[in-house]
């Protein structure tokens, strides 16, 4: 059973969500402020953190920033509806996905499942499929089994979502992957209009990996179409 930490200052909502998610098969632990969320997330082995942006004291962004310095725990941000700046900031700080609040709990469950699916394969040595469990391209080596990436022999730290995005792009290296395709394969959901999540994950990847040894951009944007991982 997946263990979820829910950080939200609305106690009543937290209790109801615990019950709802419990029926959907998740074990939920609650934190009512940023400090409690951070200490619980670092002390216990959760599978996912659902993090509300608006919390008294240390807010969601502060928690995420501190958390990402030490942990790759998957994070689903709850942002104020219609505030796309919040979601962009959250993704930039390394959230795996975001959800406007309030939204239908069924949508929330779908998002949780998608994120958990991405993280699930972590630590499993064999993914069972016929796909190779190591992809090497130029200075980049990706172990799909242990879900680790080294770039020029230096290990890279990335969230499971970033890993999934890179995974798809690497398998299609040299070909353009459309945003719709990338969203369905890496994020496990359809891309909605003006959803910036993919752009933010890709920009995080670019920042972490840096340019290719010959100075080229690793992941190029093809305007209006999608992304391409370039080979030298």
């Amino acid at each position: 059973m997946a263990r979820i930490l829910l950080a939200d200052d609305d106690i009543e909502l937290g209790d109801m969500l615990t019950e709802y998610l419990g029926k959907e098969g998740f074990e939920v632990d609650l934190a009512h402020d940023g400090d409690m969320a951070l200490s619980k997330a670092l002390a216990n082995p959760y599978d996912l953190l659902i993090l509300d942006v608006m919390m008294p004291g240390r807010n969601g962004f502060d928690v995420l920033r501190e958390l990402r310095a030490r942990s790759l725990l998957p994070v689903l941000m709850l942002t104020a509806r219609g505030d796309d700046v919040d979601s962009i900031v959250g993704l930039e700080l390394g959230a795996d996905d975001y959800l406007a609040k309030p939204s239908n709990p069924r949508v929330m469950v779908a998002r949780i499942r998608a994120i958990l699916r991405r993280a699930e394969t972590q630590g499993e040595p064999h993914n069972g499929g016929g796909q190779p469990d190591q992809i090497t391209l130029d200075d980049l080596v990706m172990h799909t089994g242990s879900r680790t990436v080294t770039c020029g022999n230096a290990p890279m730290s990335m969230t499971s979502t970033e890993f999934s995005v890179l995974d798809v792009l690497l398998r299609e290296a040299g070909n353009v992957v459309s945003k719709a395709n990338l969203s369905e394969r890496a994020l496990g959901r359809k891309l909605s209009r003006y959803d910036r999540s993919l752009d933010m994950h890709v920009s995080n990847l670019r920042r972490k990996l840096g340019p290719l040894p010959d100075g080229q951009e690793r992941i190029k944007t093809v305007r209006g179409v999608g992304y391409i991982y370039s080979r030298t």
Partner: protein
Amino acid sequence: MHSLFWKIFLSFWLTLIIFAALLMFAASSYLEHIRTQQDIGSMRARLSEYFNQAQATAKDKGIAGLKEWLDRLDRSEAIPIFLIDEAGRDLLEREIPVNIIERLDRRRKHAERPEWKRPPHMQPIRLPDGSAYRMVPDFQSITLLRVLQRPRVIALPVAVAALVSALICLMLGRYLTFPLERLRRATQHIAAGDLTQRVVPSMGGRRDEIADLAGAFDKMAERLEKVFGAQRQLLSDASHELRSPLARLQVALGLARQRSSGHADKELDRIELEIERLNELIGQLLELSRLEAGVDAAHSEQIDIRELLEGLIEDAQFEADSKGCQARLQQAFPAVVKANAMLLHSAIENVVRNAIKYTRQGTAVEISMLEDARDPDHIIIQVRDHGPGVPEAMLPRIFEPFVRMEEARDRLSGGHGLGLAIADRAVRLYGGEIVAKNEPDGGLSICIRLHSLGVD
């Protein structure tokens, strides 16, 4: 305190006095100068010049030419100059003053004395027919009127007087209109929604009616800013606060669904629909209050309008299908606009959805891109429905929040009158315009005018 009144009064008064005084001074000093013949040498030289001219004219053109010459001279010379014949008559038949006649008599007496030597201009001017004229200047008869009637004489002092008074008036005009201009600009800014405008700091150390007006203006602007800010804050806060119970309501609904295991699906669907409506309304309220605060102008990007319209119409068609009508892109060409894509999309979408709501069943909402005939830098996006239109008097008001056309009908179609208000604020945020008009053959058409960067 009427300091401005006194400033205007005194400046005008002073200018008039200075002008009149300068004019009078110039004229009278000139007069005095002539009368006392202070500059006797040059006066003599002038007179002998006239004498030579007269003599030459008399020789060449006879009496008629001389008459013409004298007439011309009289018009430009402030000193009346007579040409008097033997019989004591003026060539131009002007009346000869008594003192001149006396002078002539005196001259005749002097002439009898041999020791008196005549200056050259006192010689008689002889004509070919044998008659002779004497040239006599009449210094005593220079009048102010004569001087004023000959503008060349007083052109310089008049010009100085005009210049000085113009300078004073210019300064006064500037002093009066500069702060008014500043006030006008501030008022325009406030009318356009920028309530942070203040004018007192630009007034310097002024302490008059205009400074008082500026102070009152600033007080008004401050009050407006406070009231509007409070209203906006209330709207924003209330909407935010409504989110928490709404979020709990949604989870409660989810729990109810889990428990009822399908027994009350119809009712729960209804609750879900109403929650969605409430959620959308709150979202729109927040969007509107954010737009009015003007915070979304950032994140501008270049948007291909045709692409945006095509995507938007694809989505709108679903809604149109359920109503038994259509959404059609009638006419489009490539054009790029700089704006926040999401914001512009939602603005146009609101207009299109509004049109779908009102168009009759079986008709189509027609969306077209038009070039602005008046201004090639702009494009117009026209959304036209085949519905009942809007009463003319209501046309300008449909972009205000929560304005309803037909109560019952609106409630039935789930309208809440915020869509067009959001569209209006969003379009105006990018310096665009949105107007509505009734089509002559029925239906409403809404035109969005946007600044275009041309073809990408």
